[in-house]
C-alpha cells in the first residue's frame, strides 16, 4: 500500500522506533518566542543542558512586545520586560539567532519562519506555540509543543512522538466572490466541530487548495489546531517552490536544484489510504463569521444565530447556550448587522501582505464607522515595510485604521492592551474563546476582508455587498 505524505515525512525523520506507535523523530528546526521559549531556555539552563545545533534554532519577539510605535523593552503588560530581557539573554547565551525588537526581520514567529526561508518543504519543525501548524502549508511537518518538549527538542535534536492518525481533507470547486481561505477553514471547523480533527494529522488537498496562493495556504493550515488536529499540511508544488526561492535561509545554486528535486517527491502515493476522508465543495462556502466562543461555533454572513434547542446533541446544546449568553446574542438573530465596537486585522492567521492588499481594496475610499476602534497589525516587520512601500499604511490610516508595529498584539489579552469590558470585536484572528481578547470581550472570527467591511459599516457586514 502507498504512503501518505505525512508517513513519508515521518519515515524520513525516524531516528528510532520506540515501539507502540511512538517514534523518536529528528527535528530539523526549532523556533522560540519570548512567552514560552523563554521558559524552555531557562529550564534547559537550570538543568545544566545545552542547545544542540544552535545554528538551526531561531527566536523572535512577538507575543509580549508592544505593537505601538516607538516600542522598546518596556511593555504595557506589567512584567512584560522580564520576558523580553530573559529571552534575549538566554538566546544570546545559547548562540541562537534572535530577531529582536528593532530588527527588520522581527515579527510573528510563523510569519517570519516562512518569510525568511527557515521553514522549507519536507522539514520537521516545532515551536512551543500551537499555531506552528501554519508552516505545514510549505509541506513541512510542523506542530506546536509545550515548553518542556521544547527543552527536549533543543537538548537532543529529537522528540519522542506518538504517531497521529491520518486525515485527508479535500477542497474542490471554485471559491465564490468574497470567499477566502479563512472562510474555507472556518467552514471545515463549523461543519465538523472544533474537535473534528482530534488525534489526526491532516493533508489538505484538492483543486481549490492547489489554486490558493502560498500566503493563503498558511491561513488554512494555521487553524488546523482549532480543529484539534495534530497538524495540517499541504504537499509542496510549484507555488510552494516559487515562494521559497530566494528567501534568506533557502538553499542556493546547485543545492537549490537538489532540494527542488527532492521536494517534488513529497507527494502522497496515489494508493495511499487515510484513516479519515473529508470532501468539501467550495461552492457551498459563503463568507463565515463565528457567533460563539469556539471556532466550531461558525455561522455564515447571510445566516442567523442558531437555536440551542435545535442543537445536534446535548453537549452542543449546553455549549451553544453558554456561548449565546456570553456573546449576548439571541437565537434566530441575523448575524449580519450585529453592531461592533472594534475591528482587528492581524495575527499568524491573517496579517500577510496579500491580506493587507485585499483589505485596502475593500476600504477603497470608505471610512471606518464612527465609534469603531479599528486596528491593523502587520504580521512581520518585513510585511510592514513592504506594505508601506505600496502606500497601504497611508490608505488605511486615512480610512481611520490604526497602523501598528508587527507582533501578536491584541489577538490575546496578556494583561496589557485589550479591548474594553464586554466589547464586541470582529477579528481576523483564530480564537474566539471567552476573555481571549480582553475581559469578557466578545470576539467574532472572520476573514480580513469581512473585518474591513464590518469596520466600515460599524456592524457585522457582508463584504460581497461592499465590493
Amino acid at each position, binding site marked *: 500500500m502507498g504512503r501518505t505524505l505525512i508517513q513519508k515525512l515521518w519515515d524520513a525523520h525516524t*531516528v*528510532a522506533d520506540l*515501539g*507502540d*506507535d*511512538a517514534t*523518536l523523530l*529528528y527535528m530539523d528546526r526549532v523556533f522560540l518566542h519570548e*512567552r514560552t521559549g523563554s*521558559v524552555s531556555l531557562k*529550564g534547559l539552563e537550570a538543568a*545544566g543542558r545545552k542547545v544542540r545545533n544552535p*545554528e538551526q534554532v531561531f527566536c523572535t519577539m512577538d507575543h509580549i512586545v508592544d505593537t505601538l510605535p516607538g516600542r522598546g523593552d518596556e511593555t504595557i*503588560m506589567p*512584567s512584560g520586560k522580564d*520576558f523580553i530581557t*530573559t*529571552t534575549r539573554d538566554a538566546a544570546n547565551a545559547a548562540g541562537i539567532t534572535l530577531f529582536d525588537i528593532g530588527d527588520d526581520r522581527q515579527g510573528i514567529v510563523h510569519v517570519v519562519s516562512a518569510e525568511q526561508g527557515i521553514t*522549507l518543504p*519536507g*522539514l520537521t519543525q516545532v515551536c*512551543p*506555540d*500551537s499555531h506552528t501548524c501554519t508552516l505545514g502549508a510549505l509541506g513541512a511537518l510542523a506542530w*506546536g*509543543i*509545550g*515548553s*518542556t*518538549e521544547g527543552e*527536549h527538542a533543543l537538548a*537532543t*535534536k*529529537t522528540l*519522542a512522538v*506518538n504517531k497521529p492518525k491520518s486525515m485527508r481533507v479535500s477542497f474542490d470547486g471554485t471559491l465564490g466572490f468574497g470567499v477566502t481561505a479563512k472562510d474555507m477553514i472556518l467552514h471545515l471547523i463549523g461543519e465538523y466541530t*472544533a*474537535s473534528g480533527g*482530534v488525534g489526526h494529522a491532516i493533508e489538505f488537498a484538492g483543486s481549490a487548495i492547489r489554486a490558493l496562493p502560498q500566503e493563503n495556504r498558511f491561513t488554512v493550515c494555521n487553524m488546523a*489546531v*482549532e480543529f*484539534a488536529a495534530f497538524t495540517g499540511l499541504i504537499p509542496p508544488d510549484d507555488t510552494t517552490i516559487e515562494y521559497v526561492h530566494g528567501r534568506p535561509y533557502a*538553499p542556493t545554486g546547485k*543545492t*537549490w536544484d537538489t*532540494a527542488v528535486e*527532492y521536494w517534488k517527491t513529497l507527494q502522497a502515493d496515489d494508493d495511499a489510504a487515510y484513516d479519515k476522508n473529508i470532501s468539501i465543495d467550495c461552492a457551498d462556502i459563503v463568507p463565515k463569521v463565528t457567533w460563539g466562543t*469556539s471556532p*466550531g461555533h461558525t455561522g455564515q454572513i447571510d445566516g442567523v444565530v442558531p437555536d440551542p434547542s435545535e442543537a445536534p446533541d446535548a453537549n*452542543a446544546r*449546553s*455549549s451553544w447556550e453558554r456561548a449565546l449568553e456570553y456573546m449576548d446574542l439571541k437565537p434566530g438573530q441575523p448575524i449580519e448587522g450585529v453592531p461592533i465596537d472594534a475591528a482587528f486585522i492581524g495575527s499568524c492567521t491573517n496579517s500577510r501582505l496579500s491580506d493587507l492588499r485585499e483589505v485596502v481594496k475593500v476600504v477603497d475610499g470608505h471610512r471606518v464607522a464612527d465609534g469603531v476602534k479599528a486596528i491593523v497589525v502587520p504580521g512581520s516587520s518585513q510585511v510592514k515595510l513592504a506594505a508601506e512601500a505600496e502606500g497601504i499604511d497611508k490608505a488605511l490610516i486615512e480610512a481611520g485604521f490604526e497602523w501598528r508595529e508587527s507582533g501578536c498584539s491584541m489577538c*490575546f*489579552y*496578556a*494583561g496589557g492592551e485589550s479591548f474594553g469590558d464586554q466589547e464586541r470585536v470582529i477579528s481576523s484572528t483564530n*480564537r474566539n*474563546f*471567552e*476573555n481571549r481578547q480582553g475581559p469578557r470581550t466578545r470576539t467574532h472570527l472572520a476573514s480580513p476582508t469581512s473585518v474591513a467591511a464590518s469596520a466600515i459599516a460599524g456592524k457585522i457586514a457582508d463584504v460581497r455587498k461592499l465590493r
Partner: protein
Amino acid sequence: MTLTMQKFTTLSSVAAPIMQVNIDTDAIIPSREMKGVTKDGLSVGMFANWRYTDVDARVENPDFILNKPPFRDAEILLSGENFGCGSSREHAVWALKEWGIRCVIAPSFGTIFYGNCVRNGILPVVLAEVTVKAFAAVAERGRETDTLIIDLVNQEVTGPDQDVHAFDIAAADKEMLVEGLDPIGLTLKQDDAILAFREKDKATRPWVYL
C-alpha cells in the same frame, strides 16, 4: 544527568466535574495570569475568569466547583471532550499541578495539552463520554466518600459503585509517569543513533544544515 518528576501509580480522590466541552487552555490559565518567566506561582490564576467574581481582587465565586467542598481538595478533574484545546501554554498544566490536580478524565484531549500533562506527572485518562458523565452525575451529589480510584499500572479506573473501566495509554507515556523519568535523559541514551542519523541525513539533505 537524569532529573526525575513525581511518579504516578495509584490515586484515590473525589473528582470535580467541569463538564463543558472544548475547555481551552486560555480558560485554564488566562494569558494575563502568566506573569513571569517561571513554572511556579500559577495556581492562583488557574481558571481565574470562572473561579473569581472579581479577578483583580481575587474574590472567589462561591458557585465555581473548585471553590466548594469537597471539590476544593479534588485531585481529579472530569470534563467534556477536547479538554485543554487551544494554546500550547504548558502553564495550564503547571497551574493544575501546583493546585494539586494529578489526573484529568475526559473523552478526548487537546494533543499538546495531553503531552504536557504526561511530562509533568499529571495523568490524562481517556474514557467514553457516557462513563465520564456517569462519574460526574455521582460527583455532583457532593459526597466526600464518592471517590474514584485510578490505577495506572493496571490501566483501570474504579468508579464509586466499584465499576471498573479500563483505559488506554501509550507505553512510553505510561513509563514516563510510572517511573517519573526525565525524557531528555532517556533520549540521550540513544545519542549514538541521533548522531548517526544526522551524519547520514547531511549527505541526503544538505540544504537542511545551516
